[in-house]
């Protein structure tokens, strides 16, 4: 992979970016794992809120009512009441921010609403104006800020031990300790890392982390921690904190070693490759190798669950007009599955064993979002949905070449609404400037 160096977020504004490029953002409801992802239906254009009035010369902080003109993830373009069609003072803000309140909050808090000075003399009777404008309009639920706060509590805590994929040997797991939690993303430090720099970032719902003992229970390779390097103060994360995989029924027809399939290459998420089931583990887990790229000792096999949305039956790419990456070194191009199966004396994994669920995800081509660069998973970047194949999204990182694009499932916990970084305090990687690309 070609690593991206983090760049400073200073100067980047989602609001300006959305407005100047005339684009739309994926709604918060597309991201069920993100704060408010399950209760964002309350928020829509036209909803009125109380916000700080920045057009005031009073010495104290005062508020005024504004209406949502446009939504972009957690961010909203707001217009103060009384401006009607005048957009000159429109401004963007994060709806989950601490200064956003339902209408009625100011009166409850004993704060008077003060109209912006630009329109102070536009109406002689503000009461009559507000009664007319607000009666029958929608506002936020009274417990909105409480909901936001509850949605931003995360059960994983520092010092918890988990099993996580070994980033240098994908075929095995290692024990790592939660070092910090930001917005549900965990910074995990491998237990044997003495200076705590050997780390891995993933979301708490990532399929790459498991409770202690998981590897042994399913027969996955595991790198044991040197007992002298264990810290007594760390403790095992309770198993109920981890995301549950879908139950699969292993009937008489099940995945078998040697069966062929198509799979997203975990080392190059831009590519869907010809792959082979290398080992069948317990509880529906499979070790998979990318044909033509495998180490002799199987050290680059990787584990996908049978229900994973990242593995596909033979022919998936052809049916959906996606490029299939043939095995490295395979010269008989264009690649034909029929010939390849015959030449390798292998069979395709039965189609019925794959996950064919397609959630009503709500993503559309062109929508903006914040997405983890899974090749450098500490980075959350400005990104765009550029293709949608059933539940599979092609994520393009704005300002970067298409070669950095990644295939990501629509329910991936590594995708976030616009404004997520600001809300959680995570650093956002803005679109790459031309000089970086060079």
């Amino acid at each position, binding site marked *: 992979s070609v690593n991206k160096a983090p760049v400073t977020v200073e100067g980047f504004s989602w609001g300006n970016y959305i407005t100047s490029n005339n684009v739309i953002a994926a709604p918060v409801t597309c991201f069920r794992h993100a704060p408010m992802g399950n209760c964002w*239906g309350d928020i829509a254009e036209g909803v009125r809120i109380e916000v700080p009035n920045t057009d005031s010369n009073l010495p104290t902080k005062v508020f005024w009512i504004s209406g949502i003109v446009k939504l972009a993830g957690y961010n909203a373009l707001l217009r103060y009441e009384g401006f009607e069609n005048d957009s000159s003072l429109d401004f963007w803000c994060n709806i989950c921010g601490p200064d956003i309140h*339902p209408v*009625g909050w100011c*009166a409850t808090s004993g704060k*008077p609403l*003060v109209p912006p000075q630009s329109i102070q003399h536009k109406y002689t009777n503000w009461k009559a104006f507000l009664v007319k404008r*607000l009666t029958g309009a929608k506002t936020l*639920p*009274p417990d909105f800020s409480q909901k936001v706060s509850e949605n931003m509590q995360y059960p994983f805590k520092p010092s918890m031990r988990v099993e996580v994929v070994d980033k240098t040997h994908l075929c095995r797991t290692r024990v790592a300790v939660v070092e910090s939690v930001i917005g549900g993303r965990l910074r995990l430090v491998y237990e044997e890392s003495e200076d705590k720099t050997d780390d891995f970032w993933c979301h708490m719902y990532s399929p790459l982390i498991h409770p202690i003992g998981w590897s042994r229970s399913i027969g996955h390779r595991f790198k044991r921690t040197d007992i002298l390097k264990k810290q007594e103060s760390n403790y095992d994360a309770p198993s109920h904190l981890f995301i549950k995989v879908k139950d699969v029924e292993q009937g008489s027809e099940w995945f078998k070693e040697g069966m062929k399939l198509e799979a997203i290459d975990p080392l190059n998420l831009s590519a869907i490759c010809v792959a082979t089931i290398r080992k069948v583990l317990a509880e529906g887990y499979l070790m998979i190798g990318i044909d033509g790229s495998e180490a002799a000792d199987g050290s680059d096999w990787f584990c996908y669950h049978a229900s994973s949305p990242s593995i596909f039956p033979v022919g998936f790419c052809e049916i959906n007009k996606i490029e299939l990456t043939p095995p490295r070194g395979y010269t008989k191009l264009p690649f034909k599955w029929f010939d390849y199966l015959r030449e390798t004396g292998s069979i395709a994994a039965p189609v019925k064993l794959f996950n064919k669920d397609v959630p009503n995800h709500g993503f559309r081509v062109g929508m903006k979002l914040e997405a983890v660069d899974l090749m450098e998973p500490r980075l959350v970047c400005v990104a765009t949905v550029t293709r949608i194949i059933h539940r599979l999204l092609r994520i393009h990182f704005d300002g970067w070449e298409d070669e950095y694009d990644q295939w990501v499932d629509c329910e991936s916990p590594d995708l976030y609404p616009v404004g997520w970084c600001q809300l959680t305090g995570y650093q956002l990687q803005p679109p790459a400037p031309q000089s970086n690309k060079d």
Partner: protein
Amino acid sequence: GTEPSGRKWEQKQVQIKTLEGEFSVTMWASDDKK
């Protein structure tokens, strides 16, 4: 009021306080008991 999505909205008397005085208006807020 229930939207086609099943979301329930309820009417609320909302208090407004301006420099001219205090009054109430009837607005809609989603049912926070849901």
